[in-house]
């Protein structure tokens, strides 16, 4: 390799930003669709909005293979233990999108059996308003989440999990 090639072929960066760059363009979603938002999420994957453009087209129905949990729909008290288990099964790093009014706040279902926002029990990074949100809204939340992934710091990772 000639000295001139080295000049034009080497890029200096930090490991952190290189890894975050890779992560933000390969978010693999785990869809947790329990209601009409789940139906709307299918449209997000389809040709018109096509989240493959953002590297998030690899929908995994196994939490162990994904790093983005999309809670799409209302969560009942019977479903919440399942959601918590699935969240805990996702390996780090992991992010959560609360899609729609029900996942974010409980929506119109202010009753004994519906969780009033999943963020009461699991950490949510991006909320998408709407009932259900349009596919553009979900794409917007994905772009917002990508910006969040960029700011992730290795020093934040604690070895003592859950403390």
């Amino acid at each position, binding site marked *: 390799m000639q000295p001139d090639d080295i000049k034009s072929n080497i890029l200096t960066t930090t490991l952190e930003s290189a890894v975050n760059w890779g992560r933000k363009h390969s978010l693999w979603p785990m869809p947790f669709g329990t209601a009409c938002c789940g139906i709307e999420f299918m449209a997000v994957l389809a040709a018109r909005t096509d989240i493959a453009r953002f590297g998030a087209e690899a929908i995994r129905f196994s939490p162990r293979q994904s790093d983005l949990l999309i809670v799409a729909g209302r969560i009942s*008290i019977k479903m919440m233990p399942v959601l918590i288990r699935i969240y805990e099964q996702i390996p780090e790093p*992991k992010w959560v999108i609360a899609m729609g009014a029900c996942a974010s706040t409980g929506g119109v279902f202010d009753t004994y*059996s519906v969780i009033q926002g999943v963020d*009461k029990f699991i950490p949510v990074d991006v909320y998408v308003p709407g009932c259900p949100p349009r596919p553009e809204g979900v794409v917007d939340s994905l772009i917002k989440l990508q910006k969040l992934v960029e700011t992730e710091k290795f020093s*934040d*990772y*604690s070895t003592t999990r859950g403390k």
Partner: protein
Amino acid sequence: MLLSKIITKVHDKFPSVTLDTTQFAGEDIIHIQGSYNLDVLKLFRDNGFNFLADITAIDNLTLGGFERFAVVYHLLSHETAERVTIKAYVPEDQPELPSAESLWKTADWQEREIYDLFGISFKGHPNLIRIMNPDDFQGHPLRKDYPRLGRKERDDFPVVKRGINKEAAQ
């Protein structure tokens, strides 16, 4: 008409069981004592009303009625397309009545739902457990004296955190 014949038959056979017969929206409603529901239902089933369309229940706490609870059977005759509603009244202090599962298999899950949401138990049911709420749920939410927002069931879960320690880093 098939229905009027059976209603006179019910009156003749079980005079003390029938509390009232009313009409609503062009359909007959027969009000009976809860403990005799199987006798009346069997008579309807053997006389043409072969299809149990639905079972549901009513809490008469604020409505008034013969008893606190009424278990409502909606029957349909496939022969004549006639419909009839049978309301079996159940007292509050002993909310129990015989299961219709022996007459129609479809009563199985319907009765489990009523048991879950109203707390009315069915004698002779093969598997009377909750069907909608979690198994460890306390109370019967469709009863009128159950608070709409529940008894903090929806707030009773562990709070899970991510493995990163953002607070410490800041």
